[in-house]
């Protein structure tokens, strides 16, 4: 598998119109990629065919027509010259005003088109089917500019190059918009569908807005799904992702997942290999406010599920928080300096210190159990 093909560069390569280093890359790729070699043969045939187009001589008599027209034009110029002086001033003013109006409209229209064309964008490659950018089908490659939507139907997939910091694969039935791209922030909006992101930039440069939370990259790879009702599922395969709203944040490490729901924001993260009853109970607690479900969550928690319990601390009432603390402390005792009172009182430095201490337990392998639970619950 190649990360990149050069199918759109093949004519320029054949014509010697590429920079030397780019031509060398294409040559090396052609040596290794049978698909691009086949395409290159096709392009070369097209070039040979085009080169066989014969030039055609202009018919006789054209010059005479031009000369006659030039003579007519000269006569008209001579006749118009004195008439111009007799135009009524008011009519001239009206003509001038009309001309100015048209000119302003043209300049404004041209400026709008120019600015639209200058908007920054990311390269989009078609993977299969017929993805659309701004409602237009792209061929092998296209450009997604700020404000434009990329849409895939049930048979289409695409890949987006995220500036120079990563890439996003867009699955079928997905609608995604480029919101912003600048040095300090690159942001997509996922309205529905599925994307896989691989980001190799420093944390908090790449964001994905969804209807129920924002996924902030913390140096990672992840899959984000949004259904037709705006509910989401984040599954992290490496590094960390933060799922955020103004009121709530969930830190999701590799092997873990997190559901989101409009109005509620991100739920509590959990490891994907957690037992289904644990995940179902957590979903009821998060999104149905079923306090009785806390029992099942506490009972089913393993050492690595301290990820879930730590996130629950600020999300439950004081009485329940004490129960969460007890279970959490039983699974992984708090480090020195972190007290029961401090944790029940939601002392931020203490919570962070305990989290740092717990993170060693949060290395887990993913299983598809969560996917089944999520689909059973929401689909």
């Amino acid at each position: 598998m190649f990360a990149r093909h050069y199918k759109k560069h093949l004519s320029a390569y054949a014509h010697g119109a590429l920079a030397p280093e780019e031509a060398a890359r294409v040559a090396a790729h052609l040596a290794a990629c049978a698909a691009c070699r086949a395409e290159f043969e096709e392009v070369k045939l097209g070039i040979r065919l085009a080169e066989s187009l014969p030039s055609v001589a202009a018919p006789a008599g054209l010059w005479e027509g031009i000369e006659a027209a030039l003579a007519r034009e000269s006569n008209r110029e001579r006749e118009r010259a004195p008439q111009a002086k007799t135009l009524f001033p008011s009519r001239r003013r009206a003509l001038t005003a009309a001309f100015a109006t048209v000119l302003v409209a043209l300049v404004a229209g041209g400026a709008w088109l120019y600015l639209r064309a200058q908007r920054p964008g990311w390269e989009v490659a078609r993977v299969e089917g017929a993805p659309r950018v701004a409602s237009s089908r792209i061929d092998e490659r296209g450009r997604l500019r700020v404000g434009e939507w990329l849409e895939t139907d049930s048979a289409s997939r695409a890949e987006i190059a995220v500036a120079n910091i990563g890439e996003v694969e867009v699955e079928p039935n997905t609608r995604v918009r480029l919101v912003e791209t600048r040095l300090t922030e690159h942001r997509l909006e996922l309205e529905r569908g599925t994307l896989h992101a691989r980001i190799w930039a420093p944390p908090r440069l790449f964001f994905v807005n969804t209807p129920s939370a924002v996924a902030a990259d913390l140096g990672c790879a992840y899959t984000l799904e949004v259904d037709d009702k705006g509910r989401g599922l984040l599954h992290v395969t490496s590094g960390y992702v933060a799922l955020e709203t103004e009121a709530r944040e969930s830190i999701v490490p590799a092997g873990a997942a997190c559901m989101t729901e409009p109005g509620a924001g991100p739920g509590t993260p959990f490891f994907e290999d957690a037992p289904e009853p644990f995940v179902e109970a957590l979903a009821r607690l998060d999104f149905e406010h079923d306090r009785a479900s806390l029992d099942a969550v506490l009972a089913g928690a393993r050492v690595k599920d301290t990820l879930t319990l730590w996130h629950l601390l600020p999300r439950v009432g004081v009485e329940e928080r004490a129960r969460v603390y007890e279970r959490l402390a039983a699974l992984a005792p708090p480090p020195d300096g972190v007290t029961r009172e401090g944790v029940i009182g939601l002392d931020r430095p203490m919570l962070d210190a305990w989290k740092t201490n717990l993170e060693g337990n949060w290395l887990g392998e993913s299983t598809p159990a969560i996917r089944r639970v999520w689909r059973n619950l929401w689909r």
Partner: protein
Amino acid sequence: MESVVLTGEEARGEAVIEACKQGDRDAFRRLFERHKDRVYSVALYFFGGDEATASDVTQQVFLKLFTRIRQFQGEAEFTTWLYRLTTNLCVDEQRKRRRVQQFGEGFELSEPRGRRAQEESLARSEVAHSVKRAVAALKPKLRVVMLLKYFEEMSYEEIADVLGLSKGTVASRLNRGHKALARKLGHLRGALLREEREG
């Protein structure tokens, strides 16, 4: 008005343009003779072999050229200026005629009259005839870049300059044009090789 004394191709070109700016009809004629076949070829292929339209557009190109030549400051290559004018007029004319004539599959190219003997031999070539039809069936935006590339032998940069496109867009359109020709005329690969072998 005296005709210009010409020395060397480049100096001759500049001198002819300068003379045209002074209203020298002989210089106009000289400029016309130098460029008419290529302008006509572009227009003819752009309009799918419609000789009347190609003649009309060619005349319009040179009329506009002569009436505006004083505006030519030399900051752009003359050929760039000329072919920008040509392609713009082709596109304008096409818009006017769209309701009357559609491009596309099955459109037959009539045989051009000029240089009859040469054209008859070319028309006999299955490849040339098929390529004409296939080029006529290309989308106009692909057809224009192909014509500028293969009639004017323009570089990607020059085509980009004439059409106001990026070099990447030109490369992409040429790529699509080449592939469209190859897919439509793949069965001619053998005939093309035979022609190439026979010189």
